[in-house]
């Protein structure tokens, strides 16, 4: 695994959204310089065939990060290498026509909103092939659509239906079929099961695992549901306010989390245990607008925070093989 170069290598990726857009001449220089640091120096890599989970609270920059990786947003700075090539040179507007788009696909969060209501399932699934695929003939498209439908377990007779005629689980399948139509190497999944009921969720999760094996894809998987992440991912990245705070194999993160935020996150998973014992995070997160680079982002909510955390921002440090934590006081939970 280590000898093989990673499929995706992201280095020091940053995205700062300026707070003031448009004509700004009446703003003071200080106001003009204000920016929301949505993603602030993220370095990560994904190996071929690996599935990586990304977790963190809402507003921590997960979605921005995957939009940067999927080349839907232009980063402020940083490098993205995909399949040995640097893809950050291709402008976002051109990326949809580049051959890399075929290898880097995304399944969106809301299956209803991400399907064109005027396109049938067939149109939706074959659209990427028409744009980027090698073979456009009507008959081959039909054959491919039928093949994809079978892969994702969508009855072929549903291909002529419009999104509003499909159930939630079926729409999820159409979204997945569209994303895998061009045999991507990396599939980015943004909360693929959050809009589904538990009764359907299990089916889709199994489908994703089977597809990964059949098509030899890598996954970058975002979910709020940590139990889902645990089932699907080999490695987990924990993000807090634009920065990665802990990365490691799934079992390590779940059983031996070292960062106080990860510990709070794991303890907050609802379970059938008789007495819930949550590690509370008090207070509100720090503002992501021009954050002080010398203060730990969790400072103020962290039970371990002290003066040192207020002076030096911790960087990711390796504490065990494959396990990195950005905290001055990494300890196992009591």
């Amino acid at each position, binding site marked *: 695994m280590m000898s093989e170069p990673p499929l995706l290598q992201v280095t020091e990726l940053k995205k700062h959204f300026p707070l003031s857009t448009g004509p700004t001449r009446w703003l003071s220089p200080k106001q003009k310089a204000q920016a929301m640091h949505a993603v602030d120096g993220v370095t990560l890599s994904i190996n071929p065939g690996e599935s990586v989970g990304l977790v963190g609270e*809402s507003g921590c920059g997960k979605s921005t990060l995957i939009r940067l990786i999927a080349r839907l947003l232009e980063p402020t700075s940083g490098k993205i290498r995909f399949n040995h090539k640097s893809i950050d040179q291709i402008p976002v507007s051109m990326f949809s026509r580049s051959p890399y788009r075929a290898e880097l696909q995304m399944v969106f969060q809301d299956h209803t909103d991400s399907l064109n209501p005027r396109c049938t399932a067939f149109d939706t699934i074959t659209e990427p092939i028409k744009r980027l695929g090698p073979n456009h003939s009507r008959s081959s498209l039909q054959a491919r659509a039928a093949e994809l439908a079978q892969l994702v377990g969508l009855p072929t007779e549903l291909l002529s239906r419009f999104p509003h005629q499909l159930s939630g689980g079926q729409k999820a399948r159409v979204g997945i079929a569209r994303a895998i139509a061009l045999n991507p190497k990396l599939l980015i999944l943004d909360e693929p099961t959050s809009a589904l009921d538990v009764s359907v969720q299990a089916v889709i999760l*199994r489908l994703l695992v089977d597809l990964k094996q059949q098509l030899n894809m890598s996954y970058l998987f975002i979910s709020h549901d940590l139990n889902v992440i645990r089932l699907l991912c080999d490695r987990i990245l924990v993000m807090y306010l634009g920065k990665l705070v802990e990365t490691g194999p799934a079992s390590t993160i*779940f059983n031996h989390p070292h960062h106080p935020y990860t510990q709070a996150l794991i303890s907050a998973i609802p*379970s059938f245990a008789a007495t819930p014992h949550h590690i509370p995070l008090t207070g509100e997160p720090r503002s992501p607008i021009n954050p002080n680079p010398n203060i730990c982002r969790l400072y103020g909510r962290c039970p371990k925070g002290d003066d040192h955390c207020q002076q030096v921002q911790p960087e990711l440090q390796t504490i065990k093989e494959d396990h990195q934590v950005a905290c001055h006081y990494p300890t196992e939970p009591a």
Partner: protein
Amino acid sequence: MSNPQSITQTPQPKVNPLSGGVAAGRGRSLASSPSSLLSLRNLSLEFRTRTGTVRALENISLQINPGETVGIVGESGSGKSVLALAIMGLLDPAAHIPSGEILWHSPANQQPKQQTAQQQSATYDLLKASEKNLRQLRGKSLSMIFQTPRTALNPIRKVGKQIVAVLRCHTSLPKRQLKPRALELLASVKIPDPQQRYNAYPYELSGGLCQRIMIALAIACSPNLLIADEPTTGLDVTTQATVMTLLKELATKQQMATVLITHDLALASEYCDRILVMHAGHLIESAPTRTLFNAPAHPYTHKLIAAIPEPHKGLHDLVPILGNLPDLRRQDLPPCRFISRCDLATDKCNNTPLQRQQITADHQVACWHPLGKDQRGMMNDE
């Protein structure tokens, strides 16, 4: 039907003409007891649409006692939210209630201010109450937390003002005490720096904060019953834990009954005393939390629990529930709406009207083939 306690001025409830239905087997336990706060009797609800009548709720009977936390769980489309809106009297005009009643047993000290002869008694039917009386009740002794706080709050009013508006309508506080009380409420839902947040607009606040504003609004007048409709969907687990703990604390402190509507069974199991399971507009099982999770009697409940990802479960331990909810517009809906997804269905399920069975004193199930201990084991092995 015996109805000894309720002294409703409204016409006495008719015996339900739907001799079948879940109602047929309703036991004595379902008659309203003097201690209950809210009781629903054989509530049916339909939406008349162009494409047919959607029978969204059928013969729902339940009761909620003061101070208890009741969870209502089920898939989306099972009628959970409609039930909540029906209790609140906030239904869409297309909704039609052919039968049933929602009885509100007003605690002695909190009756509507302007009492008419109709409301002298402590019990009255919310379905027959006038809009004026409902308005007095809503927000004061009966309040609700809506699913999406961002859309439920008024986007062009400061959040502090929105809380003041509730206080002004429902309490007799003098004008100068309104703001201090609003600030107090903001602090009680653990909003940091209430003084500053008082003047914030909803768009300036994060999802978790908006949710807490919503809770502050709902508890402003110390309601007797709070309906929380998916209060934590869209919030991440850490915020979810904070919000739920807060709700639980407030409920305990103010002796407030809470109805928690959620599709997250694990969440319900942590915070509820009792859980009601709904499927396709039927209330199919009702049991104390522990019993429900350790010994589910309805096949659907059992399957629902099996489908939840849990720490000890691998991917192949998750058993999906095949099939979909039936189309509620169908005229020929079987008596048991779970029949097409059930492994245990027999002819009896298809022919005989569904009956509610009493398993233990506080455990009821609407199924002809409730699972016993041995069957649960068998189904797990499959």
